[in-house]
């Protein structure tokens, strides 16, 4: 099962290699420069819900100071969890998060609790713990500090451009380990607060498995023995639709042996080829093509009986309807 590495880098008002160390926004409503952001690289985040005092006009734009001058992204609604972005979201396979680094400036030490969370973890049926929506931090080896911060691993020098900021707090979070999840969000626990700001720089490293998927919906009761055999051999995906496994030839060989009279598909996620057995592309639903985006579909064996292919399609659609939408955070 080959693995590949990946990196995610995001900057909001400050970025990894451009030290705008004094980045901050003015959240004191009594100050004459309220709502301005200074020394930013890219756009900071500012939450200000008062659209009466600072309206957003469709023609002239957002009247909030830092939104007007382009130094912040303004949010006009509060959130329990602010989702800045999706680091990755794999269909039916897992990634191993290995390293996380963030440097944040904010009105308060809000990042001490959070940063990333995961969802829809793959678990074996026997496991009762639910890893969904697990906050990544705190962990035993995270750290938080006011500036200047000693971070020798990331910087190989005693102090990372020491400075003080005139407003707010600085936090550096660092995490190493191995954490398995198919989905990772970059989020902050915002607690429905208003009149707050962030400037943050984040890096995440992870590895993801490259493995073919067997697309064959199985019924636990009716297909108990092959179900168990497949699951033990290939692993288990929470969706019940995709099953990460070995290589394409292995999976095709096993499926031919176990299910010579059923319809099934195998997706090669290295070549992006979807192999079809007792199927033609006519039976492959559009949502599956959108999900896997195969470069090619190859017919190993055309359907001898249309009802076999139709049964595969119906079961697949049924399973797909049961998969919760993954776009929204709770």
């Amino acid at each position: 099962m080959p693995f590949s590495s990946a990196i995610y880098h995001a900057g909001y008002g400050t970025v990894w290699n451009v030290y705008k160390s004094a980045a901050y926004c003015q959240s004191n409503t009594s100050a004459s420069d309220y709502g301005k952001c200074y020394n930013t690289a890219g756009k900071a985040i500012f939450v200000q819900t008062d659209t009466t005092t600072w309206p957003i006009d469709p023609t002239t734009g957002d009247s909030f100071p830092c939104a007007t001058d382009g130094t912040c992204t303004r949010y006009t609604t509060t959130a329990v969890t602010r989702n800045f972005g999706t680091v990755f979201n794999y269909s039916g396979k897992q990634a191993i998060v290995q390293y996380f680094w963030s440097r944040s400036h904010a009105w308060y030490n809000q990042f001490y609790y959070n940063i990333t969370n995961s969802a829809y973890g793959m678990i074996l049926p026997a496991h009762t713990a639910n890893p969904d929506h697990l906050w990544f931090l705190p962990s035993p080896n995270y750290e938080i500090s006011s500036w200047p911060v000693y971070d020798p691993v990331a910087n190989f020098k005693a102090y990372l451009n020491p400075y003080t900021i005139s407003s707010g707090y600085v936090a550096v979070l660092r995490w190493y380990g191995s954490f398995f999840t198919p989905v990772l969000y970059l989020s902050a626990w915002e607690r429905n607060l208003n009149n707050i700001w962030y400037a943050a720089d984040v890096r995440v490293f992870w590895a993801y498995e490259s493995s073919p998927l067997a697309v064959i919906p199985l019924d636990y009761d009716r297909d108990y023995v092959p179900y168990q055999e497949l699951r033990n051999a290939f692993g288990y995906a929470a969706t019940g639709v995709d099953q990460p496994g070995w290589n394409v030839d292995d999976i095709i060989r096993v499926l031919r042996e176990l299910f010579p009279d059923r319809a099934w598909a195998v997706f090669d996620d290295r070549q992006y080829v979807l192999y079809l057995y007792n199927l033609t592309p006519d039976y492959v639903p559009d949502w599956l093509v959108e999900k896997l985006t195969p470069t090619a579909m190859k017919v190993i064996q055309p359907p001898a009986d249309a009802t076999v292919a139709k049964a595969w399609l119906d079961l697949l659609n049924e399973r797909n309807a049961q998969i919760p939408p993954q776009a929204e955070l709770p």
Partner: protein
Amino acid sequence: MSKRLPAPEPPTPPIQPPGRKKVRIRKGGRWVEVDVDGEVKKGRFKYVKFVDDDGLDTYWISPE
């Protein structure tokens, strides 16, 4: 004074065999031209049908 020769005619394009449409696809890191037998649309994507080198009926994503 020698008479200037007229410019040579451009080469005549080869005559396409009737019936089968040719499509260029990106395969194995390079462009290959294949004779296609049909098309199928799936979601946002269009696939062209041909028999690949492995002898399998293949539906390849169309670059057009």
